[in-house]
């Protein structure tokens, strides 16, 4: 592990910001302030954070329906994000996208996506563009365990491998595809086992250990950047909430849920930081408080933002 203090503290800041954003989204949804479907990243903060720590703005990511964490980790502004969740004109998508389509294209985000697995072909194409233009940028496709059963997984990994594209396929295995547990939707334990079918390396790591994620994803990103082609990285974690807000997640075994809550990635990183003496508890508390304050401000911004003008319905369909 060759993580510097600032890097690790920056990851900590990202993770608690995601945590604060998502925790607030729980409240706001329950209070009826956020319309539509909201899929939260609570418990999975270490994955996006650990991965994006090795990415620059020029690099691409494809996000998912569970995309808030990806956007924050890639550098998104929580005010503009919150405004989008509220459907306001000041949001990233001018209120046209909402939680399921939230993205900042200027940060290299190829869209959050309401179609499970749809991000993989997009990221494959972006990776092709990086190779074609001979930039040293790379692409990362985030997707879930459920998405690893979709058509697009297979076609994307096969093409990316055959063309040796600079891409990382980053599977967030949180154990569930809505109500369907992993063992009910595929007959394998390690999704990284699928890599060999494409002639690429596959690796599985503890997705609740941000350092482990950073190292595995970082190595894969390096490999891609050097021109050695794609890697399949599986990060094993757990979806704390129901599939979307409103789903109580009654299908989960309470014991499993309790066990996983104990594996919370944030205290784990805290312990690490304290042990390394990179921060005191007071300093960590300050970072957390700042994240909470940032999100409070984001909510205020969103609430004070105007609704889109109804004429916006008809704009942005075609580019001229």
């Amino acid at each position, binding site marked *: 592990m060759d993580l510097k203090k600032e890097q690790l503290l920056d990851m900590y800041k990202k993770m608690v910001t995601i945590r604060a954003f998502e925790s607030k989204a729980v409240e706001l949804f329950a209070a009826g302030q956020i319309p539509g479907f909201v899929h939260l990243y609570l418990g999975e903060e270490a994955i996006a954070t650990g991965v994006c720590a090795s990415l620059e703005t020029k690099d691409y990511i494809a996000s998912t329906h569970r995309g808030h964490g990806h956007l924050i980790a890639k550098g998104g502004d929580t005010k503009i994000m919150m405004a989008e969740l509220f*459907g306001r004109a000041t949001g990233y998508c001018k209120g046209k996208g909402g939680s*399921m389509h939230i993205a900042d294209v200027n940060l290299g985000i190829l869209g959050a*996506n*309401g179609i499970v697995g749809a991000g993989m072909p997009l990221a494959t194409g972006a990776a092709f563009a990086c190779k074609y233009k001979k930039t040293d940028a790379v692409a990362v496709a985030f997707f879930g365990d459920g998405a690893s059963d*979709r*058509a697009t997984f297979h076609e994307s990994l096969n093409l990316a491998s055959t063309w040796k594209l600079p891409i990382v396929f980053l599977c967030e295995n949180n154990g569930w595809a809505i109500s369907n547990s992993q063992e009910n939707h595929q007959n394998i334990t390690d999704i990284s086992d699928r890599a060999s079918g494409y002639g690429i390396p596959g690796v599985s790591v503890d997705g609740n250990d941000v350092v482990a994620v950073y190292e595995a994803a970082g190595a894969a990103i390096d490999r891609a950047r050097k021109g050695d082609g794609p890697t399949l990285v599986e990060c094993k974690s757990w979806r704390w909430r129901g599939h979307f807000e409103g789903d109580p997640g009654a299908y989960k075994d309470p014991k499993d849920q309790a066990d996983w809550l104990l594996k919370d990635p944030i205290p784990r990183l805290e312990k690490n930081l304290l042990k390394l003496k990179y921060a005191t508890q007071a300093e960590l508390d300050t970072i957390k408080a700042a994240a909470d304050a940032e999100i409070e401000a984001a909510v205020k911004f969103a609430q004070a933002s105007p609704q889109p003008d109804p004429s916006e319905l008809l704009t942005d*369909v075609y580019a001229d």
Partner: protein
Amino acid sequence: MKQMTYAEAIRDGMRVEMHKDPNVYLQGEDVAQFGGCFGVTAGLYDEFGPTRVMNTPISEAVIVGSAVGAALAGLRPIAEIMFVDFMGCCMDELFNQAAKLRYMNGGKCKVPIVVRTPCGAGMGAAAQHSQCVESWFTHIPGVKTVMPSTPADAKGLMIAAIRDDNPVMYIEHKQLLPVPGDVPEGEYVVPLGKADIKRDGSDITIVAWSWMIQKALAAAEELAAKGINVEILDPRTLVPFDKDALLKSVAKTGKLLIVHEEVKTSGFGGEIAALVCEEGFDYLDAPIKRVTAPDTPIPFAPILEGAFIPSAEKIIKAVESMF
């Protein structure tokens, strides 16, 4: 008669047939214990067990494709696609497989599958979870397309769809799922291809289906107060389409307004307009008009989504413009 919601009526139709015919089974994402994303299949897993109500992986192509194969091998599958918006992930299986196998094999096989799927806007689900694309399916010879607007129709058409020996797209509207109504008990069948007059009238015919029937009914009440007596025709199934019922109504009223939630261009309204031009032109004493969604993706913000969905107000305005 029993009072039940549209969702319950769909389920009741499936139950009746699953009890009657052991070859009927149900597969789809989260349809088992979870009861489906909108609760339509709740309880069926407990009632019929894990061999007849099965969760699938997120694999739309094989959900529909395996249903086709099972049908060829003698079963009568009901396959749920969680949102009609996802049909792009299994279009080949419907379009080139289910729809054509009988014809390509010279009529020597049949493909009795029902693809159940919810459509429609109104819940802030944005561009990829709110659409209506029924005209696509009507453009595929070999497929039937069913779009119930009431609980009773939902049940009767479900039973008819399951019994039909052809691939049937059975499209439920998300906004209608909680709507209650009287539903006949037991084996209640509404034949595919028979329209229903949802409101008798003499001055103008509105043809609409699915959720839009409710919008049309609301508009008709207000128009009645203004002295315009609207007839509302619900084709219930777009393929087969009950042309005779429509022509009869237009012959009576002389005017036709088409209302659909699909985007305007190449929605099924175009087909209806063309049919009436071809066979009922002389009945018309005013141009046929359409009230539809605009040609845009569906926006997230409620204020924009509200402007997207055809409203009673827009229907009223369009009707008034025809007098």
